[in-house]
């Protein structure tokens, strides 16, 4: 039932003024008391989502519901939600005590106003009307929502405004908390974070870990319904971080409130959360328990981002049978026959055996990791990462087994590059991402050829076509894109930055993003670094074209 959810995000998108989309169609339901983590690389939109929940940003589309009530456009100071900031954001001019008491001193408790007979005094609530009007104004300025949606929202608000204008309601007076009450609450918060002795200390004299605790105390002392934590452990050293992870988890159990935690550290997410939301490029990749996410990653990105993994290209060769590493394995997932898929195998799911095994390989490299050894084993020309507690020498030939539940199969996220906004220019080149690519346009009409004037002529020479400006869909296979080392050379057709790289057995798969935000996905034997700027070229024959309209439209 909906009642279980404390906070719901429905189709939430955030589009900034410069039209960059930070969060795209985000849907999430959080149960009361849950510890939920947004996990993803930097720039994936996790912080933006958190800031929308806090109220520092308002969603461009969609709505955020707290206990079933729409709070999308409520300012942060009116939300029962508190945040622990990335670098704590403690007030340097206040000491520990005053930092923690900050929120309490602002709090006003409403008390019903009554007349002498004890009947509540009814009044027109001008403040409420003001608030509603300002929300009305905010929504009326939104750009990214449909007119109908906007109208519906505005009408609903107008109705409320009219109601409050016409109907007197209970009026309240507001009382501050007494010094005594504040002191009791602050003392309790200090106890929870173990800082009783430091209440008079200046913020600047505290260590990172202590500041962290003050930041937590400052947030929880207000008894929020939800506590937001924006990479709160990022500034701490490793040892401190581990300790704080455990403490935060304990605190969560003790307080019983909902925690929404943002991190890019997968280990942190796995240890602490009840639920993990993996994000990339503003889109949710997977939502699940830590175990589900680790064991059943939905795609190669999740598999690669969470824990260590081996990723291979595979083919389905039968019911629950898959071929990769030149061997046919049994598996648990059902996919259509002959489908090309990604296979993920966790290093600890591979067993080294002295008996004859499914596959065999030669140990290429070994690292002692404390509890076990990590081996890189060459299986044919593929690398396989394996963890084992047994000690083998480098160069040993070993046999390997992979059980069906250790083999995770997922749909390929990229099979081919498709560019739907391409067109043919006057030189019979195809324009992809505003760069011209040589291509063979005769493929658009079987048997045709190009005459001296550059027109396409049909096989029987009866028809002539001018394809200048024709809209086409261009497709380039992942392995048909080559890297040009010298980005200033003429060969180089497009330049971009590597934004993603995954190692797949014996090769890498990269995503290169150009200045115009067009992606080129390609595979390569060679290793490039993330964020490198590289040039790409494609041979004319490797670009597959498809006209959007019938070719007859272009006849002259």
């Amino acid at each position, binding site marked *: 039932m909906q009642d279980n959810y404390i906070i719901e995000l429905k189709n939430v998108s955030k589009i900034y003024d410069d039209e960059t989309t930070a969060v795209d169609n985000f849907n999430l339901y959080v149960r009361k008391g849950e510890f939920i983590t947004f996990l993803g690389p930097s720039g994936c939109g996790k912080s933006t989502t958190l800031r929308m929940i806090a109220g520092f940003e308002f969603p461009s589309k969609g709505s955020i519901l707290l206990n079933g009530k729409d709070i999308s456009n409520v300012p942060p100071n009116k939300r029962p939600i508190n*945040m622990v900031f990335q670098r704590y954001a403690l*007030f340097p*001019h206040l000491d520990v005590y005053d930092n923690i008491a*900050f929120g309490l001193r602002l*709090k006003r408790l409403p008390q019903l106003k009554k007349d002498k007979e004890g009947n509540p005094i009814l009044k027109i609530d001008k403040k409420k009307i003001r608030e509603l009007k300002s929300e009305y104004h905010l929504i009326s300025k939104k750009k990214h929502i449909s007119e109908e949606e906007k109208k519906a929202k505005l009408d609903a608000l107008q109705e409320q405004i009219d109601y409050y204008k016409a109907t007197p309601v209970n009026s309240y007076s507001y009382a501050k908390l007494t010094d005594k009450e504040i002191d009791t609450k602050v003392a309790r918060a200090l106890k929870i974070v173990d800082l009783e002795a430091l209440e008079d200390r200046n913020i600047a004299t505290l260590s990172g870990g202590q500041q962290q605790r003050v930041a937590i105390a400052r947030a929880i002392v207000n008894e929020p319904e939800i506590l937001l934590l924006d990479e709160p452990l990022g500034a701490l050293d490793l040892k401190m971080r581990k300790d704080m992870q455990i403490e935060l988890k304990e605190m969560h159990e003790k307080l019983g409130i909902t925690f929404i935690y943002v991190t890019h550290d997968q280990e942190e997410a796995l240890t602490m959360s009840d639920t993990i939301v993996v994000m990339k490029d503003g889109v949710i990749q997977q939502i699940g328990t830590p175990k589900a996410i680790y064991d059943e990653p939905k795609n190669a990105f999740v598999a690669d981002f969470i824990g260590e993994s081996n990723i291979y290209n595979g083919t389905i060769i039968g019911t629950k049978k898959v071929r990769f590493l030149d061997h046919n394995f049994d598996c648990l997932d059902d996919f259509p026959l002959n489908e090309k898929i990604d296979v993920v195998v966790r290093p600890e799911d591979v067993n080294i055996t002295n008996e004859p095994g499914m596959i065999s390989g030669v140990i290429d490299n070994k690292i002692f990791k404390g509890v076990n050894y990590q081996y890189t084993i060459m299986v044919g020309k593929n690398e396989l990462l394996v963890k084992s507690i047994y000690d083998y020498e480098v160069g040993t030939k070993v046999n390997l087994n992979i059980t069906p539940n250790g083999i995770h199969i997922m749909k390929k996220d990229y099979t081919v590059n498709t560019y739907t906004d391409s067109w043919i220019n006057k030189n019979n080149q195809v324009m992809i991402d505003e760069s011209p690519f040589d291509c063979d346009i005769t493929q658009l009409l079987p048997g045709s050829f190009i005459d001296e004037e550059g027109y396409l002529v049909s096989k029987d020479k009866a028809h002539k076509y001018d394809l200048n400006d024709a809209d086409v869909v261009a497709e380039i296979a992942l392995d048909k894109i080559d890297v040009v080392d010298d980005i200033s050379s003429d060969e180089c057709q497009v330049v971009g930055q590597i934004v993603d790289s995954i190692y797949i057995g014996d090769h890498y798969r990269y995503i290169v993003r150009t200045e115009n935000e067009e992606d080129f996905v390609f595979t390569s034997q060679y290793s490039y670094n993330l964020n490198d700027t590289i040039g790409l070229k494609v041979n004319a024959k490797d670009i597959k074209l498809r006209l959007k309209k019938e070719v007859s439209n272009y006849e002259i």
Partner: protein
Amino acid sequence: MVKKILGYSYIYLILLLMYIPILVLIVFSFTNATYIGTWNGFSFDLYGKLFQSEEIMIAVGNTVIIAIISAVCATVLGTLGAVGGFYAKRRSRAILENINQIPVVNAEIVMALSLVVMFVFIGNNIFGGANLFSFWTLLVGHIILAAPFVYLNVKPKLQQMDPALYEAALDLGCSPRQALNKAVLPEIIPGVFSGFMLSITLSLDDFIVTAFTRGSGLLSGAANIETISTLVQAKIKKGPIPPEMRPLTTIIFLIVLLVVIFISLRRNKTINVKSMKRRKLREKE
């Protein structure tokens, strides 16, 4: 060692040369002689004359009043400008900062003249030949002199501030205005203070802008407003510094000295009154 002695000798020699004129005035403020260089025996006569001189007392009063009012205005304007500019879009901030830079690099005399021609023009063409020059025009001149420096003093404090502080205050229940007062203002207070002190100094020391933009008013009544600068300038144009102004130098010197000592001692004070209050609160239980 030789190096050190040479270094110190150089420093103290230059210091001595720099202070000679002031020291001479101070020394000869304790003797009742018309010209410096003649010693008529030790006396405090000149100090008595100083305080009896209505002319000087009026100038001192004017100077202080103008300095305080103009510094307060410049500080408020400059601080609001810096805070607003900090949160404005990059382009508007660049425009604001470029304009702010004009009075900083501009020659004082050009600035003063430009104000004067504007006031004259407006007086002639809008107010039918009225003379606009008064305390208010003088005040505008002094604010323009100082406000850009307040802006430049506050700006770095804003840049050093953790931008999340404002959001933290909102998160804890502050309205936007409360957040500015409770989170942002305490962070920039040192910059605001040094901007204020600089404004006072610039106003006290100013001659050109005062001479150009002044009119009648303040303690001078119907006559043109005299400040220490304009009065001294009028006197030294005709002859040596009048004897009764030598004690004025001594007094100004002493005040500056006290302020300097106060500033260098201020760093060491820390008394935590708050913690004592809290302890009391709990003892009552």
